[in-house]
């Protein structure tokens, strides 16, 4: 449980960088590329040791990353094609090896397939320690090179002109993303690993416009999904941990998309309606102003009827104008107050100013 909590946190942190670099799919490719490494590590040594598997996964993950980079650099292929190619090739090869291993009359092969979907229960205390140590180092690096990471993410070319070695920063980020993915394989599995990297970051982006807060929030979301997901999976028997964690994280993403105050769908709709009503009301007021202006006494009463047929007019906007004390209603007649007249006179000027802002 502690292991998945830390894992979720570090995934959220580094995932933020992957999302902002638009390298979301890189995580997916790396995790799939790690599978043959695990299988080969087992084939060579014949023992089931998680550290050995991690090493194998790390090597083949790095090879995969390297492939993707050289494909995009040396051919005309776009990066999505390179990612797709590498991902399916490595994963296919990994699956082939896995089926081959399972056909062997060797009892110790059992359990290798937990790396597909992850099983938190297989984490030993030493695994948790390893995750904690790596997470600590990643956090430290993040704090030290915060400024460099930030500027690289925002504007790589500009960063170069300032004299920073962008390659170094880039390699630093990517290396930690690869290491994190490899560490998560045992818990979350190769297939869904990228989701836990991206989901918390995507959710966090909805709530804040500051990189600092986004990274912190993503870490919290990640570790929450880790804890709850592991909890659910261990309580309800032998559910694979990976899918459950991902479902929890997806739930957070969904909630964030709907409810976040600045970018969420719900508040956007509310703002939209409020604006529409405001503008309706202003249009009515402006129309009334046009009529009232022609009279010497601005509070000269007019029939409500004459507002009919005018688009901006509705019973509701009229009532709102009365509430705001801009207009007085007497039976079937309306008249403008001094306050309403002044407001209407300023309305146009304000609109112009706003559009200049």
């Amino acid at each position, binding site marked *: 449980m502690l292991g998945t909590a830390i894992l979720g946190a570090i995934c959220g942190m580094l995932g933020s960088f992957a999302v902002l670099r638009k390298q979301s799919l890189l995580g997916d490719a790396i995790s799939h590329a790690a599978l043959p490494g695990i299988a080969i590590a087992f084939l060579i040594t014949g023992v089931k040791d998680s550290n050995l598997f991690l090493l194998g996964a790390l090597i083949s993950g790095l090879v995969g990353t390297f492939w993707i980079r050289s494909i995009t650099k040396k051919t005309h292929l776009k990066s999505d094609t390179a990612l797709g190619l590498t991902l399916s090739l490595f994963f296919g090869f990994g699956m082939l090896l896995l089926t081959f291993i399972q056909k062997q009359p060797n009892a110790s092969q059992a359990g290798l397939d937990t790396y597909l979907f992850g099983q938190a229960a297989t984490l030993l205390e030493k695994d948790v320690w390893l995750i904690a140590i790596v997470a600590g180092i990643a956090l430290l690096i993040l704090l030290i090179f915060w400024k460099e990471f930030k500027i690289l993410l925002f504007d790589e070319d500009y*960063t170069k*002109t300032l004299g920073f070695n962008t390659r170094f920063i880039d390699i630093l980020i990517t290396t930690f993303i690869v290491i994190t993915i490899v560490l998560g394989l045992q818990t979350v599995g190769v297939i869904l690993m990228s989701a836990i990297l991206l989901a918390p970051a995507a959710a966090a982006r909805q709530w804040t416009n*500051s990189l600092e807060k986004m990274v912190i929030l993503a870490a919290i979301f990640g570790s929450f999904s880790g804890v709850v997901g592991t909890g659910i999976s261990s309580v309800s028997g032998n559910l694979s941990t990976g899918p459950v964690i991902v479902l929890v994280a997806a739930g957070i993403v969904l909630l964030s998309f709907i409810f976040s105050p600045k970018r969420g769908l719900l508040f956007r709709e509310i703002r939209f309606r409020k604006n529409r009503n405001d503008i309706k009301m202003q249009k009515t007021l402006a129309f009334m102003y046009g009529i009232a202006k022609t009279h010497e006494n601005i509070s000269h009463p007019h029939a409500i009827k004459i507002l009919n047929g005018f688009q901006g007019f509705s019973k509701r906007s009229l009532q709102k104008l009365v509430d705001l004390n801009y207009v007085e209603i007497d039976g079937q007649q309306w008249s403008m107050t001094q306050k309403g007249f002044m407001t209407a006179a300023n309305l146009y000027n304000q609109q112009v100013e706003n559009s200049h802002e």
Partner: protein
Amino acid sequence: MEEKYAITVDDLTVAYNYKPVLWDIDLAIPEGVLMCIVGPNGAGKSTLIKAILGIIKPIAGTVSVFGKSYAKQRSLVAYVPQKGSVDWDFPTTALDVVMMGTYGSLGWIKRPGQKEKKAALEALEKVGMLPFKNRQISQLSGGQQQRIFLARALVQNATIYFMDEPFQGVDATTEKAIINILKELRKAGKTVVVVHHDLQTVPEYFDWVTFLNVKKIATGPVKDIFNDDNLTKTYGINYKVSVQE
């Protein structure tokens, strides 16, 4: 009288996939000019700037800044990239972006402090963006984003400025504001190099011009070389520009 050159480019050649984008460019930019680079799309204008700044690695050629290699003189040079080159939905504020201009002088690891913040605020003031300092950058208009980029370069307090299409997609007011700042920079003795598209405004805005179309066509004072002949050579068609005097 020997002129002092801010930038000297020798035999610069850049190619993407064997296709030359810049061919054997020799260019000397005198100190204190406000220069524009003009040429058709794909002429290599942005590439020239990027190659000078070391963002793109040239196949051949050298660049020197005040007679020394660019790598040693980096702090004298500031860059304003094309506005479209970054993702404006990045989670940060206007002030934060301008602060990035101080990162170069800070160097690795060191964090910006009060002094850097003050410099950034002053730059925001200069471009008229102080009221927007805490705005999320995605909520700025195109012209405001351009001013933020300009402010970020101003913070660097450089001697030479390179700007890639600073007038692209900005309204007349912003354009005027930007050109005023550029003219101020020149008055202060700085050298400014701008990739520019609007040929009509060249004589009004700039005093030096370089015509570029893969090869360098011509470079010199606007009043001497900004004529139909060079425009035709650069743009390929029979160009008639009405230069108002």
